């Protein structure tokens, strides 16, 4: 059901043309006469004049208003989401042209009504309507909405800020796409706040544990900001320290033999939004340069002397305690205040259990699409089992678990509780925090011991595989098959993601799939349709399937996610050791 708004304003009762224009500005419909011109209305509006007409005389009358408010405030009737109340009401004898001649008390009738409404309907959310500009109204204690330049966005912001809304109404006003699951009170509050501040150019710091969806929220803020430029995301933790400066600020052409010029992330985001994820991992010297870029609104490429003017909205995120880092001298206080105008905190997934099932369904559909499968479903018990897990890796962990389940399943399969349990057990094993002794397995034959958690490289793989003991036991082999298939496929997909990232054009950012597949297979003759066929094999799809840029980005995402996970675990284990 749409949010219901009661507008108490004498002008709209007098002038139907004004009434219709106001609805168009708000992108709303009148509940008694929905307009076919508004196809996706924000809200449903009921008008009340607040006046009684007797002959040629118009009187302001609170009783009319009280009756209108009560009609939508009784327990059995749908509540008003918001009451919008004008300040000035013209009353008195109606002169030529229909406008009452006016009375001294007209000027503040709305203010008087507000006091009465507060007395009679204490919880009623009321916003005053005013002809003054919003800047002039900002300082007032009472919420005001300016009629000057009023539009749909301002109306949505006002409703989200002051309205009494159900979950569905909030989602409707936020304009969230179906695949962004926001249902819990805490996440909804975070997204409401994000929407309210999206239009301004203020910096936003998003806090939350790793994998809680900070980048999704940042992207949402950008989408709602109205900024025309692109959204550029950078995971600071995933970039080697030596390369960070050139990644962010770019490189001037010809600073050394063979070096071609490249735009940095700041330049790429010009006119749009730059999202610095894991900013807590940024080294101090890079922090100084970012701070200067923000203060001066211009940057210099590495080796360059010419300033590049910037118009960039900065969003940052971190899972670390920046205030604590400031005390330890690991994070600059001045940068902290610069990036922290608005702070939003995403709760961990374990504190928003109601989102697990819908998120799992979204990820299952996404994985099905990527894997070219249809009709995959989670049984009721499987969903219940998913809801019992603590998800230390948050939404990202849930996505990985569901992707793994999907890639091991055939089309039209119902994923049952047992499959989910197995996937969760393997995830739990992954997340258990081993102590230093357990980190290294002693090889009985005296060969090198191998870490069973992070920082293994591809070079370690042959040795690692040669150390795996394989029993000639049919039961063990049967049980291992499914998990091995899934693990190998995911592993290959990650390697493909890394190969694609290697072959990204540094200037345009475009991906060269032919060169990437040549790199991956070692076959320099791989041309024509073969690169696409190889990618389809890796994705487990029919060979003739058209490979899109989204498919390539999916592979790169898998690689990036795993890489940042390795980094995080490396950091955590390093601390424990």
């Amino acid at each position, binding site marked *: 059901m749409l949010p219901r708004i009661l507008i108490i304003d004498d002008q709209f009762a007098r002038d*139907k043309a004004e009434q219709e*224009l106001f609805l168009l500005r708000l992108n709303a419909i009148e509940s008694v006469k929905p307009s076919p011109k508004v196809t996706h209305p924000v809200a449903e509006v009921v008008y009340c004049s607040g006046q009684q007409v007797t002959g040629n005389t118009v009187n302001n009358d609170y009783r009319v208003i009280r009756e209108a408010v009560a009609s939508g405030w009784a327990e059995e009737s749908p509540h008003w989401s918001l009451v919008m109340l004008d300040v000035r009401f*013209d009353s008195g004898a109606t002169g030529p*042209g*229909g406008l009452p001649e*006016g009375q*001294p008390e007209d000027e503040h009738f709305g203010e008087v009504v507000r006091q009465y409404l507060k007395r009679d309907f204490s919880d009623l959310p009321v916003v005053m309507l005013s002809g003054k500009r919003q800047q002039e109204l900002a300082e007032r204690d009472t919420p005001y909405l300016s009629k000057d330049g009023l539009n749909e966005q301002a109306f949505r912001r006002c409703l989200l800020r002051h309205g009494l809304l159900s979950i569905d109404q909030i989602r409707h006003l936020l304009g969230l796409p179906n695949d962004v699951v926001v249902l819990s009170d805490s996440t909804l509050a975070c997204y409401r706040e994000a929407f309210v501040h999206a239009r301004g150019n203020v910096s936003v710091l998003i806090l939350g544990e790793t994998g809680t969806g900070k980048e999704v929220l940042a992207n949402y803020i950008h989408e709602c900001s109205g900024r025309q430029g692109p959204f550029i995301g950078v995971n600071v933790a995933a970039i080697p320290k030596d390369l960070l400066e050139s990644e962010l600020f770019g490189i001037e052409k010809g600073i050394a033999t063979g070096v071609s010029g490249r735009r940095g992330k700041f330049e790429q985001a010009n006119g749009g939004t730059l999202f610095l994820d894991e900013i807590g991992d940024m080294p101090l010297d890079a922090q100084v340069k970012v701070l200067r870029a923000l203060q001066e609104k211009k940057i210099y490429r590495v080796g360059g002397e010419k300033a590049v003017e910037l118009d960039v909205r900065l969003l940052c995120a971190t899972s670390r305690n920046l205030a604590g880092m400031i005390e330890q001298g690991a994070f600059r206080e001045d940068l902290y205040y610069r990036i922290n105008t608005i702070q939003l905190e995403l709760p961990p997934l374990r504190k928003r259990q109601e989102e697990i099932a819908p998120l799992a369904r979204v990820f299952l559909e996404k994985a099905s699409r990527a894997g070219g499968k249809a009709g995959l479903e989670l049984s009721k018990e499987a969903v219940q089992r998913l809801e019992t897990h603590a998800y230390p890796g948050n939404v990202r962990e849930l996505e990985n678990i569901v992707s793994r389940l999907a890639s091991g399943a055939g089309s039209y399969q119902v994923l049952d509780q047992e499959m989910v349990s197995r996937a969760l057990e393997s995830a739990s094993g992954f997340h258990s925090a081993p102590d230093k002794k357990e980190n290294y397995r002693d090889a009985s034959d005296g060969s090198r011991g191998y870490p069973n958690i992070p920082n293994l490289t591809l070079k370690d793989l042959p040795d690692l595989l040669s150390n795996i003991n394989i029993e000639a036991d049919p039961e063990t082999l049967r049980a291992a098959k499914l998990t091995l298939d899934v693990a190998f496929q995911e592993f290959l997909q990650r390697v493909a993601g890394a190969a694609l990232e290697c072959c990204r054009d540094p200037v345009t950012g475009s991906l060269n799939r032919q060169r990437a597949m040549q790199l991956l297979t070692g076959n320099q003759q791989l041309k024509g349709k073969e690169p696409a066929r190889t990618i389809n094999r890796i994705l487990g799809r029919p060979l003739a399937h058209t490979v899109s840029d989204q498919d390539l980005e999916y592979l790169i995402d898998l690689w990036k996610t795993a890489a940042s996970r390795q980094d995080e675990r490396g950091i955590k284990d390093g601390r424990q050791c």
Partner: protein
Amino acid sequence: MTIPGIISNSDIVRARLKHSWLENQLLNKTSQEVVYLWAETGWPALENEFSERVKDTLNLADDLENGFSPAQLVDRLAPFAKVDQEAKELIKQAVHEAYLESSKISDFRMPLREDAMALGEALDELHKAWQLPVTEGHEQILRSVWQKVSIKAKALHTILERLPKGVVLP
């Protein structure tokens, strides 16, 4: 300087013209919205009401000196109740003359009249354009005339804002 809480009839008219007419009916519209009214709903206020508002403004200009004069307080404030009529008239005349001298209220009369008439002419032009037979480029004509109306309305709004808000003390 005005007296808080004491509103003159001219002030009621000033506030009504500024807010209910100029802000709520003219200055709040884009040319796109005016074209929408023309094409979709009609605009009865343009046909019936706005010429009356122009007349109201001219009347306000004509009565400007008396409208905001503190002389009217002599008949309204309690302390003067026991003063005889002849003395009242003398007091009224004295405060009125002092107020005319100090407030320079008369300086507003001509600009107010001129701006009201200029807006009236622009609205007449819009009214005529409204009724022209629909031809190609009609929307463009409306937009262009509306721009003129907006400029004149803004000018009148500025001068109405500069008028006193209440009875003026000498």
